């Protein structure tokens, strides 16, 4: 297995072996947090000592959906909301792959909500990085299922009327084995969390709170990305092991970050293989044909 070393040559970008440099510059707006999440992820990939050839990234549609196009591993940019389903196919057909789903809140939690909860329930072995910027940014600032109550968006011109999802709670209650949340400001903690999650067996979710200077904070007059970062700095509380039900995010309320869930559950492939061996055993022994 090839170990990736951080490149010390100053002429070369330190992440060059993991990023598609031929696609730079990327499409993200200035002060967007997605790039930070990608940096943290590539750093984590190196730290976790995983062969990048055996990693596959699947993204959906949206700003974060473009991540697959910039990380230099086998990467898929699929349809809106379906990266988890696509990744499930990859993982089940080739369990040797390390599958990462990197997408946004609208993609994973709105249209892809069903795949999210079902993959968590099945405990498919994959890492889901959900970048949450509280809005649909790619299409121009529509309300998302993570938009805080009363926040403005183009399809909630008089304030959002729906309470947002608490993503860690949703992941926890549907069965995820690893759940953490950090903002794009907490790049070191985020890197550590991603490293840990990459080595975790089962359905892991890392939520990354990201500033969206172009839409969310502009429509809501919260300043640019830098000011959002300052806001995170002043209003984030790190509370490891906090009960996931207390992690709701209101409009400009305190944000609780940390690692909330880290538990063991048999993964889908483990259960599958156990079933398979039982079936095979019973096939050899016709009397026990009932199997399972």
């Amino acid at each position, binding site marked *: 297995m090839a170990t990736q070393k951080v490149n010390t040559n100053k002429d070369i970008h330190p992440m060059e072996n993991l990023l*598609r440099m*031929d*696609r730079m510059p990327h499409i993200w707006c200035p002060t967007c947090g997605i790039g930070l999440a990608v940096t943290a992820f590539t750093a984590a990939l190196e730290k976790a000592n995983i062969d*990048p*050839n*055996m990693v*596959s990234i*699947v993204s959906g549609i949206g700003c974060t959906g473009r991540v*697959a*196009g910039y990380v*230099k*591993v*086998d*990467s*898929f*940019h*699929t*349809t809106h909301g*379906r990266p*988890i*389903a*696509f*990744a*499930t*196919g*990859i993982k*089940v*057909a*080739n369990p*040797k*792959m390390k599958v990462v789903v990197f997408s946004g809140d609208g993609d994973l939690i709105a249209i892809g909500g*069903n*795949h999210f909860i*079902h993959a968590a329930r099945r405990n498919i072995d994959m890492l889901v990085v959900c970048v949450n910027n509280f809005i649909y940014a790619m299409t121009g600032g529509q309300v998302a299922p993570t938009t805080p109550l009363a926040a403005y968006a183009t399809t909630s011109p008089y304030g959002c009327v729906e309470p947002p999802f608490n993503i860690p709670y949703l992941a926890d209650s549907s069965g995820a084995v690893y759940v953490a949340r950090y903002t794009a400001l907490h790049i070191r903690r985020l890197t550590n969390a991603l490293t840990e999650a990459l080595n975790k067996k089962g359905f892991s979710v890392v939520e990354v709170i990201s500033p969206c200077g172009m839409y969310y904070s502009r429509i809501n007059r919260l300043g640019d990305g830098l000011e959002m970062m300052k806001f995170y700095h002043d209003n984030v509380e790190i509370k490891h092991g906090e009960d996931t039900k207390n992690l709701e995010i209101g409009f400009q309320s305190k944000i609780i970050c940390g690692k909330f869930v880290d538990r063991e559950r048999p993964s889908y492939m483990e259960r599958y293989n156990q079933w*398979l061996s039982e*079936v*095979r055993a019973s*096939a050899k022994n016709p009397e026990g044909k009932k199997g399972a």
Partner: protein
Amino acid sequence: MKADKSGVLTGSHILSGNEACAEGALAAGCRFLGLYPIVPSLEVSKRFLQRAPEVGATFIQMEDEVSALAAVLGASWTGKKSMTVTSGPGFSLMMEHLGLGVMLETPCVIVEIQMVGPGLGLPTRPAQGDIMQSRWGSHGDYEIIAFAPSSAQEMFDFTIKAFNLSERYRVPVALMSDAYVAQLKEKVAIPSADQINIEPRRYYGGPRDSYLPFKRDEDFVPPMVDIGQGYRFHVTGLTHDDRGYPIMFEECQEYNVHPLVRKIRDFTDKIIDIEEKNTNDAEVVIISYGVSSRASLKVVEQARSKGHKVGSLKLNTVWPFPEKRVAELASQVKAFVVPEMNFGQVVQEVERSAYGKANIFFLTHGDNGVEYAGDILAAVEEASQMKETKCGITEWKKRSA
């Protein structure tokens, strides 16, 4: 390439169409099934799942049909031949990912057991109402290959062909069966593995550094690689260039999407699979596919014995449509008779291809779901006595009803 022995259940079996389809898939080397259960396609997955442990195939039952096809596409990129199986409403849900499959040029097979529609229709009754959908159901421009089997044996044979064409042209291939063929138990002869030809995946063989996921060969089909081989490629559903990177100009759209159409359209002669019977001297030709063709073939015999010059054109592949052959026949025959179990779909293609040179009789299905041979015969008799050419579609009014 020869088939892998482990998947081939050589011998003579009594199988339902659905079971034969599963056997065909395993024989063709299919090793991944993504499914969501829906009547009347259940037996395909049931059979596949029963045989999966011994053959070494994998399956997953997903939460819906949307994700079932998504998983199949993902699995196909790992190098496993993959398929999904569904029926009417499920097929409608798969339309978005059919488009993704086309755009990512992912080989896979979609088995569709047609039932009466629209909406929830009649889940247990056969129909052929989704034929146009298989061609036009997803948004945007694409071409697709669709088979229409008429017996359990054909379910087996065409499934293998479907996989082969899918790999050859890197396109999702639909197997448009129906509830009747799917549940019909018949004798199926499964040859030995070395008698089954398998189209291997067209893998890239050049130097690693110069691999481009969508660099097309002469025939517009790009060679493929599996994931996990260190190519570290990128593919996207957006309009893309050879590298698989999104570029959204008019020129790139032409560069990307036109070949998706041309890789099928320019090779229709190689893809199209039709069976003709007694068409050489025919004055009337019955054009049919799927279960309808069983009645048609019977009618040809009956009509011949009565002295009518009748032939049959059976569409094994409905898409691409054999317009050239139909046009040729149009200048020879007086009329086409098209029996279909819907309210007029493929008959419109016949009308288009006939260029006004022949009359066209359309027969919608009989009351019990499949055509009465008697109706077709009556239509054939009337057609062969026609003096003038009226052109266009004449809807045949049933006498037996």
